C-alpha cells in the first residue's frame, strides 16, 4: 500500500499530462469548436473525421511527415553507426571528440534552425557565396519545395545523429572483444565482422534507437516552424505543424484535435510495423 502512496503523485501528474490530453482529443474530435460556434463546443458526431478523410492537405502532410521520418532516421542510423564505430576505437583525444560531437544534440532545435536559415540563405549565405565565387549560380535552398525538404532532413540529421551514435556506442561497448578476436582467427575480414558480429549483436540497440527516433521524427515541429515555416507552399509542413495551425491560426479546435488523433494513429501503425519487422528479423536470424 505504501508503495502506491509513494508513486501516487508522479502517477497522477503522468495521467494528467499523457492520458488526459488523449481523452480530451477523443471528445473534442466529436465537437465543432471554432469561430463559427463562438469557440463553444457543439456536438457534431463524426463530421470532423469525415472531413479528415477527405482533407487533401492532411494526407499530403501525412505523406511528407512519413517520408521525412523514414529518410532522416535511415540516414541518422547509417551515419550514427559510422560515428559510433569511429568513436569506439582507441585513439588519443577520443574523450574530447566524443563530447564535442554531442554538442549539436544538446543545442535547442530552434537556435540552430535559425543558424541553418543563414547558412542556406539565398544569395548571401556562405554556401551560396562559395558557389558564386566558383562561378556557379546561387541555389534557392529554402525556396524550392524539393530543396527545402532536403535541407530540413539535413538539419535534422545534423542535430540527432550524435544521439543515435551515443546509444549505438553504448551497444558496441557491450560486445566482448574476444568475439572479434575469434572471428579474425577464423580468417574473417573486418568488413565481414561488421556484418556477422557487430550488427547482429547490436540489433536490440538499433531497434530502440529506431523506435525512439521514428516516434520523435513523426512529431517534427520545432525545426519546421523555424527553418521553413512549413513552406514553400506547405511542401515541408508536418502533421504537428498542421495541427498547430488549425488550433492557433484557424482557431478550429475540434478539427485540430482530430488531426492530432490522426497523427496518433499513424504513430501507432508505424510503431507496430517496426515491432513486426523486428520479430521477423529475429526469427530469421
Amino acid at each position, binding site marked *: 500500500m505504501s508503495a502506491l502512496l509513494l508513486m501516487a503523485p508522479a502517477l497522477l501528474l503522468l495521467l494528467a499530462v499523457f492520458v488526459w490530453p488523449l481523452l480530451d482529443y477523443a471528445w473534442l474530435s466529436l465537437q465543432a469548436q471554432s469561430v463559427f460556434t463562438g469557440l463553444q463546443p457543439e456536438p457534431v458526431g463524426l463530421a470532423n473525421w469525415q472531413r479528415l478523410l477527405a482533407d487533401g492537405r492532411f494526407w499530403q502532410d501525412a505523406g511528407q511527415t512519413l517520408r521525412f521520418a523514414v529518410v532522416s532516421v535511415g540516414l541518422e542510423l547509417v551515419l550514427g553507426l559510422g560515428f559510433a564505430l569511429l568513436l569506439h576505437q582507441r585513439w588519443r583525444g577520443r574523450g574530447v571528440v*566524443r563530447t564535442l560531437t554531442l554538442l549539436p544534440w544538446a543545442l535547442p532545435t530552434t537556435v540552430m534552425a535559425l543558424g541553418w536559415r543563414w547558412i542556406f540563405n539565398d544569395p548571401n549565405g556562405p554556401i551560396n557565396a562559395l558557389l558564386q565565387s566558383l562561378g556557379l549560380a546561387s541555389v534557392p535552398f529554402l525556396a524550392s519545395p524539393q530543396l527545402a525538404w532536403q535541407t530540413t532532413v539535413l538539419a535534422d540529421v545534423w542535430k540527432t545523429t550524435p544521439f543515435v551514435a551515443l546509444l549505438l556506442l553504448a551497444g558496441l561497448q557491450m560486445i566482448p572483444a574476444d568475439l572479434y578476436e575469434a572471428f579474425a582467427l577464423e580468417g574473417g575480414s573486418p568488413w565481414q565482422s561488421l556484418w556477422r558480429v557487430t550488427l547482429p549483436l547490436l540489433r536490440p540497440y538499433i531497434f530502440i534507437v529506431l523506435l525512439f527516433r521514428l516516434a520523435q521524427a513523426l512529431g517534427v515541429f520545432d525545426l519546421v*516552424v523555424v527553418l521553413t515555416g512549413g513552406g514553400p507552399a506547405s511542401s515541408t509542413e508536418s502533421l504537428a505543424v498542421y495541427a498547430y495551425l488549425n488550433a492557433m491560426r484557424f482557431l478550429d479546435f475540434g478539427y485540430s484535435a482530430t488531426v492530432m488523433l490522426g497523427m496518433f494513429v499513424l504513430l501507432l501503425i508505424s510503431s507496430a510495423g517496426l515491432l513486426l519487422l523486428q520479430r521477423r528479423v529475429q526469427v530469421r536470424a
Partner: protein
Amino acid sequence: MSGTHRQRMALGRSALVALLLLWSLGPMLWQLYTSLRSADALLLGSAGLGGGWTLANYTDVLSGDPPFWRYMLNSTVVGALSTLFTLALAIPCAYALSRRGGLLRLLVGGGLLAAAVFPYVLLFLALLEVARQLGLANNLLALSLPYAGLSLPLAVLLLQAAFAELPVELEENALLEGFSLLQRLRWILLPLMGPAVASTGLLVFLFSWNEFPIALTWLSRSELLTLAPAMARIAGSSVFTVPYGAFAAATVLGSLPLLALLLLFQRQIVAGLTQGAIKG
C-alpha cells in the same frame, strides 16, 4: 610492410576524425564568425578577413527590448524548477517501483516506456486548454509542471534502475536500526545515488531549456519568453530583412550555457543517455 599499413590506417582515421569534427562544429563556428561580422561585410562579402569585425551584433541583441539575457534567465529558471519538481516526484516513485515486483511493476514500467518514446508535441493543445482554464498561462512556475510531467517517464526509469542496483542488505540493516522510510531514503540510499540523480537532473534541465511547442503556446508576454520561443519570434519577426549578424549573435549566446554544461558534466550526460538505452 605492416608498419606502413598501420600508419596508413592511423592517417585515414585522423582524416575521418577531422571530418567528424568539421561536421559537428562547422555550422556553429560559422555562426560565431557571422556574429562577429558587420552587416556590410556579410552582405557584400568583400571586406575580406582583415576588416569588418565588430561586436555590434552582440550589443544590439543584448540591448533589445527585452534584452536577450532575459530569455536565458527565464529558461534557466524554468529549467531549475522543472528539475526540482521532477526529482521530487520521480525519486519516491522510482524507489517504490524498484522495491515492487509483479503486475504493478510490469504495468507501470511498460506505461513509462511508452510515454518516454511518445512525441509530446501531440499533447500541446490539450495542455494549453488546461493552462487557460486554470489561469496558468504566462507563469514560469506553472510552465515547469508540464515539463516535470513530460520528464517523469525517463527520470523514473533511470532512477529505478539505479535503486535496483543498490544491495538490499543495506536497507535491511537500516530497517533493523529503526530508520523510517524517509530516513532510509535520505541517509542511506540517496547518498549512494549521486551520479544517477545528477545525470537524470541534467537531462531534465536540457529538455526544459530546449522545449518549444508548450512554451510557444503558454507564454505570450515577451518578457516571460524562454529561449526557444524567443528564437522563433526573432526568426518570424523579420522575414524580409536579413539581420543575420544579430541572429548569429543570438544563436551563439543561446548555445554558450549548453556548451558549458556539456563540457562540465559530459560524463553524467553520457551516462544518463546510455543508461536509458541499456535499461530501457
